């Protein structure tokens, strides 16, 4: 599997996802500077975490209008998997690849900590190695991760099984305390209708090495390696 990681000025978790992909696939991901006009052929496009353009406007808003995003959108429409993590999730929602928006955390503060996620569907190239209902522990690190969409959109996401991850307690129960950023219906990650675009706030890439506290994110990258081999 060949992955391409898109770099914007201010991206800063590209190395983390690079390392996780390399560990899972054995193959060096490509790095693509946002001003490079040609997007190389890739089996997976990744938009990593960070603070693109400093997030001085709305998070992800500037990067979403970068020329390379037109190409990313075109690839997504032809079915290429596009993964947006954290700032990448903000960018793909701003670019219209996924519905909704990420608001400031309800605490109005940045949070970096491990959270529990319930895998809501194994029906995607990102989650096929997990079981639906499985609880995993991975870190979050964001200031604006409070997912919001109107009621109809949320109903549709749930009805079509497009919610990929929710914040939960360690026993898998959804409750308000476990939903630190205040996301609507505890949503941590969603898929598009074609199920090839995934956006999520947490960082499975930082939970793939036994020395770093959790390996629960390995299934995520193993899923991709298996599906896109």
């Amino acid at each position, binding site marked *: 599997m060949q992955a391409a990681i898109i770099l914007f*000025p201010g991206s800063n978790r590209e190395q983390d996802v690079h390392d996780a992909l390399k560990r899972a696939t054995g193959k060096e991901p490509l790095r693509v500077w946002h001003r490079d006009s040609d997007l190389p052929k890739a089996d997976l496009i990744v938009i990593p*975490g960070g603070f693109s353009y400093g997030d001085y406007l709305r998070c992800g808003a500037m990067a979403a209008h970068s020329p390379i995003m037109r190409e990313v959108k075109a690839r997504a429409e032809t079915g290429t998997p596009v993964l947006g993590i954290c700032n990448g999730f903000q960018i793909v929602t701003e670019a219209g690849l996924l519905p909704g928006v990420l608001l400031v955390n309800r605490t109005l503060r940045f949070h*970096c900590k491990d959270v529990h996620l319930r895998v809501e569907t194994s029906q995607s190239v990102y989650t096929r190695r997990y079981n639906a209902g499985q609880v995993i522990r991975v870190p979050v690190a964001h200031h604006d991760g409070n997912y919001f969409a109107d009621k109809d959109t949320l109903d549709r996401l749930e009805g079509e099984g497009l919610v990929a991850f929710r914040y939960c307690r360690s026993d898998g129960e959804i409750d308000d305390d476990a939903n630190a950023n205040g996301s609507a219906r505890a949503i941590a990650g969603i898929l598009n209708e074609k199920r090839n675009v995934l956006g999520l706030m947490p960082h499975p890439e930082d939970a793939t090495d036994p*020395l770093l506290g959790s390996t629960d994110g390995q299934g995520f990258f193993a899923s991709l390696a298996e599906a896109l081999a």
Partner: protein
Amino acid sequence: MTVIDPPATLDQARQFGLSEDEFKRACRIMGRTPNFTELGIFSVMWSEHCSYKSSKVWLKKLPTTGARVICGPGENAGVIDIGDGDAAIFKMESHNHPSFIEPYQGAATGVGGILRDVFTMGARPIANLNALRFGSPAHPKTRHLVDGVVRGIGGYGNCVGVPTVGGECNFHPSYNGNILVNAMTVGLARSSRIFYSAAAGPGNPVIYVGAKTGRDGIHGATMASAEFSEDSESKRPTVQVGDPFTEKLLIEACLELMESDAIVAIQDMGAAGLTSSSVEMAGKGGLGIELDLDRVPTRETAMSPYEIMLSESQERMLMILKPERAELARRIFEKWELDFAVIGRVTDSGRLVLTMHGQTVADMPVGPLVTEAPLYERPWTPAPALPGLAAKGVAAREPIAALKQLVACPDLASKRWIWEQYDHLVMGHTVQRPGGDAAVVRLPGRKKALALATDCTPRYCAADPKRGGAQAVAENWRNITAVGATPLAITDNMNFGNPERPEIMGQFAQSIEGMREACLALDYPVVSGNVSLYNETNGSGILPTPVIGGVGLIDDAAKAVTLAFKRAGEIVVAIGETTGWLGQSLYLRELLGREDGSPPPVDLKAERRNGDFVRAQILAGAVTSCHDVSDGGLLIALAEMAMAGGIGATVAAPQDQPAHGFWFGEDQARYVVTCRAADALLQAAQKANVPARVVGKTGGDALTLAGGNAISVAELKHLNEAWLPAYMAQ
């Protein structure tokens, strides 16, 4: 050459913080009276902040060399050899005065400045730490300052993508009017690719890169060299404004350029901006510099030479390049959308010559600006010796009740609320997160890791500066040791009051003496540092606070241990001698409202012996957890291990000494370790002449005193975690 502008006056010099003698000295060096711009340059170069004029004679006493030291104090940061051709580059720096006036920007730009000091030398920053001191929680400003400082550090560090992995935070009324914000950055470089600041090659172009110059921060270095009074709020315009996004681009652009051979010398524009960077580069190279100020990128119109030279606008660097590589450099900086301007050239005149609008606006000798800066041997008086306190003479409280109060006191309460606002995981190498004795950060592509910690116990330093100085170094060494790493070198951040007062100068001098002894005994040289004096408001100074930032190395990150109890049924062993020393303890302060007695003695031989023993046991896999014993004493250490592991323990004090002294005394050179069977460990300790005593066994869900009271781990956690969030929510 005719220099424009009328001569400056003594009154102007005084406003700039220069004394009459210093003004006369400047006139003598110039051979005439300097003009306004030149006087401004003298005043910032000779400010306490830039010249170290009160501290230099003492700083020279610190040991700065060692087998691992590649570059000691004097450059942008210290450099040590960590094997395999790798070098760790690190430094700590204060941003105290600005953070009190404008906490968010003050703290943010503190982080930005120290990052630049490190990547200037060719290192990719891989970890940030900080040491924070705030006033009493009851003081009306404290909550606002904590909030702003934490947001500022997070706002900057999170955006640049460097993990903030550790630090410390204390509260004391002596900081009510002068908080301390000390930030440390650690970077990683190839030891063959270190970049220095000495200018070379007359004719080589002088390049300005980064952000544009504005009117912010003018005379920031001078402000940081004076006491505060009621009107310190009016100094807000001297605080700079940070832009972490530009910093991130600057890091990437500089590191990309450093892959080539283009750079002759490089220096960040920190305190005193373009002035100190150009003067220091020329001074170190024994050369001169000519700058055309019309070419300096500015973001405001009609800036005067004085404003351009003294601006402390952030995210700017000065470089001297090989002429044939200037185009390559320009392309890299343009890719990263940063300003790039050739603003001058290196000369062999030994003079700093500034031109603007075709006129010479300053012309001054570089050498004397640096070498003839005033140097003071200020008078000092030693701190009066305080008596020891025997535990027998100190009121005894029931230990579990005392523990409950101590784990929830501001200095011991969990600082999770702070460090969860810092991205401590980005870059994907944080093996041990904040909350332990030392952070452990693995090096990319390697098995080895660095262990990092910051430490100081200011109440010890106030009571006995020499002992306190030694203790700060020893505790830092112990924290690095407690994870299994070998301590290699330190950076120091000396925060004190007004050095013109002999008792304050005495605190400084004696702290240095204590640090010196500890550094020598522990082979722990000082490779970089920063001095922050005049931390006083209306004549009332802070507790002396010499903060130590330490770096250690462990060859295999997988061998590092944490403080958490790992499983039930393990033996808990206290290493080191417990005499029950309660002088200056938190027990005394928090339970009895007393801040008296002498602080615990620091036996550096025992420190070394006990630490070397513990480290060897960790690396041999003989212990399953380890924690140093410091603030609060043994029972606090045990409670912290139980809370971290979510496992209780049953522990017992010996019959032959007062229980409150045993549990809450703050004797130094101690650790708590756990192991599956104690016999081998105790035998090895005896052989090494290291005191070791079984104090209990892990298990259950409570911390239980044998034959006494107990407290559940859940309640301990609640007490320990609740204070700071509840305080900040008020």
